[in-house]
């Protein structure tokens, strides 16, 4: 039964969702909306599970004094501080905890932690990529054979397409880049998208019909 019930549920809801798409009846829409609500409810449990898992793993690392055990302290401090600030707000002349309303959004600390810690950290991490890409491009883009040469030329053309200092060849490069994006790139991407789409349909049907059962785990 532990395997039959999930298989049955997947079959029933999978088939329903396929047919629902083609049935614009009110009752079909109602069931569809009802099912969407259920996905949120399941998602909330997944969120709680994720937070619990993060706390458990972090606490275990801190207790065991594993290498880098200071980082989980920062992780937990960030987690609890943001939760605290998010639920603390100002209303009717005084500060208080508000769990059901959005007063926490006006808490300046909630805003400042995001603006002055989160944004600079994430932006910096992403900006570092520029240096690694520069170094990787220098090492990897070598015209060793015809295919590598084609890749190299295409990369140079696309990189140069918005360079305004190329004089009369500037528009030629821009047009060539536009052709590369709109013709060979489009053809290749379209083939990939169609292939992926067909693969998704096949995999979905296999799951709905119970042929693919990997999602059930080994239990």
């Amino acid at each position: 039964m532990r395997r039959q019930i999930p298989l049955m549920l997947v079959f029933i809801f999978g088939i329903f969702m396929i047919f629902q798409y083609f049935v614009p009846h009110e009752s079909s829409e109602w069931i569809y909306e009802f099912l969407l609500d259920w996905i949120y409810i399941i998602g909330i449990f997944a969120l709680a599970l994720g937070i619990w898992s993060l706390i458990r793993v972090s606490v275990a690392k801190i207790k065991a004094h594993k290498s880098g055990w200071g980082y989980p302290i920062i992780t937990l401090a960030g987690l609890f501080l943001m939760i605290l600030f998010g639920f603390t707000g100002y209303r009717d002349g005084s500060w208080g905890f508000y769990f059901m309303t959005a007063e926490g959004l006006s808490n300046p600390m909630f805003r400042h932690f995001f603006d002055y810690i989160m944004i600079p950290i994430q932006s910096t991490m992403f900006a570092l990529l520029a240096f690694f890409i520069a170094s990787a491009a220098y090492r990897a883009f070598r015209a060793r054979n015809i295919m590598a040469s084609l890749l190299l030329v295409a990369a140079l053309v696309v990189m140069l397409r918005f360079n305004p200092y190329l004089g009369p060849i500037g528009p030629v490069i821009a047009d060539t880049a536009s052709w590369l994006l709109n013709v060979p790139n489009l053809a290749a991407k379209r083939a990939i998208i169609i292939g992926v789409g067909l693969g998704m349909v096949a995999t979905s049907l296999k799951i709905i019909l119970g042929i693919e059962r990997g999602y059930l785990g080994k239990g």
Partner: protein
Amino acid sequence: MNIFDRMMSLDRRWVFLLLVVVCAVTYIVPFQVPIRVEGEVRSIYDFIDTLKPGEIVFIAIDYDPNALAELHPMCYAVMEHCFRKNLKVIVTALSQNGPGMAEQAILNISDSLMLDREYNGVLYEGREIRNGEDYAFLGYKPYFALVILGMGQNFRIPFPTDYYGTPLDSIPMMQGVQNYDQVACVVDLSAGNITDAWISYGQGRFYFPLALGLTGVMGADYYPYLNSRQIFGLMAGLYGAAQYEEMANNPGLAKDGMRVQVYAHLVIILFILMGNIGYFMGRRDEKK
């Protein structure tokens, strides 16, 4: 080790150093880089520019701070254009850190809109934009595909209240606004696979005009949708944002950033050419 071997195996710290110097100098020294506007960006600008005051543009801010450098300028340019044209804007944020980005953008644009400005020969008087009247910020909900589908039925399904907890029915500009049918177009600014959901579940099912603003690396992946007319416009990376600013005659973060990007690309090209010259000359010596 001869000079060609050295050209091929330069220590990567030299690459980093030259890139830092070029980025710093071009950032500090103020000058403008000419921008050539392409059709895919022009079509977004033209679409928004021809909307009548009061029409609604839906802007989906689906990016986190890591894509801020490329997508925030796009967001500022499009949103300011909408508000200057007296259009109404519905904003959602379907990535986890999106609400912070959206709120920051709205606050900064609100300040900028207080000033009188002249764009393309038209004087726009400064005004205060009001939450609920000029824009509605619906906030974040998880499971973006479901949210996009839900909004196709009614915005109130995934968002019974806005980000600040006000019921959608109490928001003046949301009166009579049920779903995408009341929206002139959707502009999705995204740095991830939320874009695919907007194309497949949003435009594919509800047929609204959709334009995309993406990071530079994502741009090439979405050209097929432009060709198939599933999207009516595409802005890719900082260059896309700079083109929009150029069209709007409103130079901002993107045009500022373009001078850094143009020269950083030249440095990368220089190193690629240097490596290849070293490689070919080295091979020639080996053959001899």
